[in-house]
């Protein structure tokens, strides 16, 4: 679905811009809102490739959990270790997201390589939300 892909790419770019602006400490207009967008979407987007077999709504909900987990963990660690600084927190979230995303991409490549011979035999099974679309 190209529309979804374009939307996700746009979200990623906008979020990364916000994160970069906050990390560097530039006070640009809309930097705050872009940072907010980054914090809310980046962990979910990073987890997205890890969940390939799911239908979009389920995938979105599970990825969304990542947003809560990453942001809360970073905030709690900053608080407990006496390192409170929202700016450094954004940097930490950025690093975690990049790590998770790279694991996800590696995982996706490995799965694709493994699935490649099997795909010719049987079409990839999609996980349909049959109760939602039941007729």
């Amino acid at each position, binding site marked *: 679905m190209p529309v979804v892909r374009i939307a996700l790419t746009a979200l990623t770019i906008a979020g990364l811009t916000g994160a970069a602006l906050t990390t560097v400490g530039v006070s640009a207009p809309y930097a705050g809102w872009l940072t907010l967008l980054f914090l809310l979407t980046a962990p979910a987007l990073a*987890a997205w490739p890890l969940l390939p077999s799911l239908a979009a709504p389920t995938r979105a909900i599970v990825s969304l959990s*990542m947003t809560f987990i990453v942001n809360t963990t970073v905030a709690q660690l900053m*608080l407990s270790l006496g390192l409170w600084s929202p700016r450094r927190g954004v940097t930490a979230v950025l690093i975690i997201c990049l790590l998770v995303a790279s694991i996800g991409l590696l995982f996706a490549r490995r799965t694709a390589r493994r699935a490649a011979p099997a795909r010719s035999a049987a079409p990839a099974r999609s996980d349909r939300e049959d*109760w939602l679309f039941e*007729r």
Partner: protein
Amino acid sequence: MVLLHTGKTADDTQVLSAAAPPKRRPPSGNRAVLALTACFVAGLALYWVPLRWVRLDAMNGYGLISVLPVATLIGAAVLVLTFFGTLALNRQRPLLLGVQLVALVVALHGLAPALEELARPPTAWQHLGFVEYITRTGEPHVTLDARYSWPAFFALIGFITRAAGIENIEPLMHWAPVGLELLYLAGYYLILRAMWANWRAKWTAAWLLVTTNWVGQDYFAPQGFAYALYLLLLGLLLNWFLPDPRRRPGGFRRGRLPRWPVRPLTPGERPVGRPGAGERTAVFAIALGLVLVTVAAHQLTPFLMLFAVTALVLAGRCTLRGLPILIGVIAAAWVSYMTRAYWEGQKDSLFSGIGNLLATLRESVSGRIAESGTELAKVQQTRILIAVAVVLLALAGLYRRRRWRFDDRVAMALLATPFLAIALQNYGGEITLRVYFFILPGACLLIAYLFFPTAFTVARPIRAVSAAAVCGLLIAASFLFVRFGNENFERIRPGEVQAFHAMLRHAPSGRINVVWQTGRKGPMGAFPQAPWGLTAQERWDYTELQAPPKPEDISAIVAALKKQPGSFFLTTRSNEAYNRYSFGQSPDYGARLVKALASSPELKPILRHRDADVFALRTPPAGSPPPVPKPVPFDIGTTTWTRVGLLSTLLLVLLLSVREIARIHGRLPKYGQNPVLRGFGYATWPLLALSIFVIFERFHTLGS
């Protein structure tokens, strides 16, 4: 009239679409959808438009329901009937149903936020104060309030809003109930996805989760957030870690009990999809993350997670058999190492609830009812009636499903395990409320099964849908009656917020002593019904006075103000309403009190507002207000064994996680295989014993 119309449309659709050939969309189906959409829009208009003329100050003891226009109530009924009308269609209309569900969340849970100027209730403003303190100082004030020992939610909000440069969190607080309810639906969607039921049952269950939740724990608070995480965790476990009967020749494991000589039961859940081991590992990591965040955010929820997950494992509905131990270890470790400031020196009250079951129940049920006969008491009694009705309906649903030979172990576990919390802690007399909140996911599912018990879709479920609609009308009506029944004293008036800022302006440094009156002084200290603690939390003291029979008798107030410089007397309309509706104070008590205060030569007004009044002495006592004590920094506390305990807990969590991942990949060694990996397995038990020992050692050494 609207009722008849909706019912008729649905009925017509049934007849016509039954006559039409399958697979082709009958034109009448579209007509029914159009009619239902029109009803839905009309219902929304009826519900929302008349609210423009609502006067909140005209509320009586029944709360918000007493000022709601009749048209709004009719609108609510139309919304209910339209939803069930949509369920009567032969085909599922996900978009129409989904939009109605979201509109219902906004209509029911957004009702008070839409009508009121500021976020409610007072506790939300204390949570704002926690966020303010954390972002200002960068540390939790662990000795000020127990909730600072579980600060993850406040840290999260503080981090995100400060990083984004948002100074005013009020809009977020204001609409938190709607946002959280939508989050609950997202988590519940995952749970419903794994259930073996027809689409009508699932949509009804989701609808019930919104309408039976009158508890009001969905405001800007850690418990509301943790509840969303609880639902998400259960959803993850049911979707990815349900044993797959297709991989097992005999289906689900049936346990070792002898089978009854009847037809075997069908599991009430079924695995969805067949995700690979890598993906399930990722989901396991996310589930573990949810547990960690919940443990750091809320006191009670991790234990309810532990109970529910243990029940799922014991019922053979979760393949992560080590997860309960993992949750238990993490939760116990958090309490032991991270909340020392909370339990230090109060070993006895911490475990007060254990074994004190009857007292806890009595206190949290009857203790929450105001003086009998008052309007507030009627609202509170209705709440208990709803809770009892929900449990009874759920049991009836379970029975009906059983008659259809379904084995609903997950729903039963979700319904039953929260009751274990009663034995744990009395939670400030609130535990039965919390238990009701946590039984809802299971109860709503079972109530839905009462009307739609089958896994297949019935063609013309007119009787079932009608019964569900009647039940829905009753539930929605009772929701509107009880949900905002405390609104007289739970709404925040703008003047009340101004009162606190006015006191801060008049006393720029040192401690501020707020003197206030309660209708009945209890054994424990209490706080005024007001947004206390909304900012500079470490600076406030509260002096509670028993309200005298005559409001003109202000000698106690003057005496209390003379004790300490920086003292103010605060009376808010919320506090007066609370005294009136809970303790039977006369309606004009507040006005007479303010008049007496204003005419006293010893007092001067600091703030006169229609929502609140603040007075101080004209000639304050000599000296300056007492200084604010320095906060005790967060520290885990050291004993002889603490380091060993920390290390063993970390190793144990790591080991248990690795074992679960090995289990997911099917690599857990069986007896006689791979001695090295088995050695890891054997290491679990000594580490567990060591961790538990150190936890007890810390309680023993630091707690007494």
